[in-house]
């Protein structure tokens, strides 16, 4: 009998399809993406090709080097095809019964290595440098009152919407509106808090730690789990053990610890499902500035808990999922977790 599981935060139901269940080894991320640089084509994200991108917004550079020249470790540039642009005023208006606005916001690319490497090839030290730069950028975006939310994400592999260049990079989008999916999650967490006066994510961490069967790995300050109501095979969440709603306020001494857990988890995932396409997405509280917002999000610092979600793209979302928001997951998260626990990475 298949099992229906409910995500305790957002209220989304997931069908764990025991009838069509597959074993963890029956999933594969497919072939590693081929390097698709055409002859003569240069990667705009590599050191030495700085002139191919829009001028940098920020870079971690060796002392004495000039902007938009070699000598950087991590470089942040505006997106070449930005979804949202910073240099305009927000204009909201109606169109008949509809609402629209211009695309005021930020869309930045964080190139986390100067070398032409895919993420799995980037060293821990380099990865952590990239994470610090991302945090610096979010702190900066928070200062712009027109930006309500900052989303950090990585798309890797074609099936996950990643570009054809393998050069490792993350993206940051600052949006002028609060996002529906974020709102739902915040509302769910708030509801739980109103009722129990506890953070639901802290409760999840406690319960998962006690059970153990969905904990992939832990570091000193972070924990990686395959969530109870996983939508996708091998879906993984990485949460800070200490309660906090804002990613950009994370204690900088803990970033390296988070980086090592992420590296370990990705290593284990690659061991089991190969060089898999994925989306990595940050979930954090929106920026809170004006008084009404503070009133509305009055308990957010207690009820919400930032985290990362890693969504491997191994199955296809079909009509049923689109129509119902109800996911069918052919791999129980306990089985995914068991195989990830066993996977040895050097």
């Amino acid at each position, binding site marked *: 009998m298949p099992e229906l599981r409910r995500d305790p935060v957002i209220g989304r139901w997931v069908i764990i399809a025991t009838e069509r269940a597959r074993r963890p080894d029956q999933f594969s991320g497919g072939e590693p993406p081929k390097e698709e640089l055409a002859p003569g084509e240069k990667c705009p994200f590599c050191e030495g090709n700085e002139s191919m991108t829009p001028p940098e917004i920020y870079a971690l550079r060796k002392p004495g080097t000039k902007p938009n020249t070699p000598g950087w470790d991590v470089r942040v540039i505006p997106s070449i095809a930005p979804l949202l642009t910073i240099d305009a005023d927000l204009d909201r208006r109606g169109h008949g019964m509809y609402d629209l606005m211009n695309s005021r916001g930020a869309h930045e690319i964080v190139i986390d290595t100067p070398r032409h490497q895919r993420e799995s090839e980037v060293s821990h030290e380099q990865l952590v440098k990239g994470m610090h730069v991302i945090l610096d950028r979010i702190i900066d975006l928070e200062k712009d009152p027109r930006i309500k939310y900052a989303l950090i994400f990585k798309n890797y592999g074609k099936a996950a919407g990643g570009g054809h260049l393998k050069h490792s990079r993350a993206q940051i989008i600052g949006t002028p509106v609060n*996002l529906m999916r*974020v709102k739902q999650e915040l509302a769910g967490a708030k509801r739980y808090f109103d009722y129990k006066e506890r953070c*639901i994510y802290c409760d999840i961490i406690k319960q998962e730690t006690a059970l153990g069967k969905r904990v992939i790995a832990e570091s000193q300050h972070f924990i990686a789990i395959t969530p109870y109501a996983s939508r996708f095979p091998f879906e993984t969440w990485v949460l800070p053990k200490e309660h906090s709603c804002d990613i950009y306020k994370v204690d900088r001494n803990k970033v390296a610890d988070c980086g090592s857990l992420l590296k370990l988890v990705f290593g284990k995932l690659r061991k089991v499902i190969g060089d898999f396409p994925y989306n990595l997405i940050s979930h954090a509280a929106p920026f809170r500035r004006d008084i009404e917002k503070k009133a509305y999000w009055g308990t957010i610092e207690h009820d919400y808990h930032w985290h990362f979600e890693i969504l491997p793209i191994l199955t296809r979302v079909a009509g049923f999922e689109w129509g119902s*928001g109800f996911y069918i997951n052919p791999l129980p998260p306990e089985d995914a977790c068991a195989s990830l626990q066993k996977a040895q990475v050097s």
Partner: protein
Amino acid sequence: MNELRRDPITGRWIIVLLGKIPTVTDFKVEPYTKNAEKCPFCWGNEAQTPPEIIAHRKSGPPNSPGWTTRVVPNKFPALRIEGALNKEGMGVFDVMNGVGAHEVIIDTPEHYKDFADLTSSEAEEVVWAYVARSLDLRGDKRFKYILIFKNFGKVAGASLEHPHSQLIALPIVPKRVLEEIEGAAKYYEYKERCVFCDMLREEIEEKDRIIYEDANCIGFCPYVSRFPYEVWILPKKHNSDFAGIPRDCVPNFARAMRDCLARIKALLQDPPYNFIIHTSPINGHERNDYHWHVEIMPKLAKVAGFEWGSGFYINPVPPHIAAKNLLSVKLDVK
């Protein structure tokens, strides 16, 4: 400069890219590999499926050739019909057993014919099968919602090539449906008008996103399309419940579906797609604030991290351009 548009029903924002608009050939459609061997949905292979629930037949006894539309239980159901509904808690988590119905509607015995290729009367027959199954399953007290949808092509999630639609009866009202209903209810509360009726009027007035219109139905690329070439079909007369579709509206609705799908098929070279019938939950009364409709979503662009994280969609083809291109197709239908 791109444009952000807000869906008046759910409050979801989308980004319409107003830069370089991709042409039809910029979308790479996964080639359709043909494999007609041993198809359980073809005539003569009826024994490979569970026994049929209903069928429209020209000849022959049940579970033999001679049918034109056939409904069978799904062999690998996501939910099962047997058993009582059982809900329980496990610490912070909730769990429920997978009670429900999962049926397959085989649109046609012809392996390479999709909805887009059906004649008007064949399409009508499929719509009748949807209605008949909905009416039957709503009698079961365990079910709260009936979802009818189609996955066509591998990328859209179809595991079998032979065209078929699916029906799932659920013990709960799914989240996405609730969101839509709540959004429509909020609009109604404020304006005392159905948001979909308003949308219909707006689309008819603006004209430039309409691709189909007859006395009963309208097909258009909605102002807030999440996907390139997304098409919605709405009955003109307010009605919240698909299963309550008036008899005389069925032929026009079937034709609207077929014509819109035929335009998509011809223009985009047989792309994978999903369509979903959005209707109100089973509760016996007609709602003033909700309006049943069909959403057709060709699978051309990949949904990436940003969309997942934000529920914010990026559409590279402005809907009025999509409509213009779809209308430019010369239809060859019967």
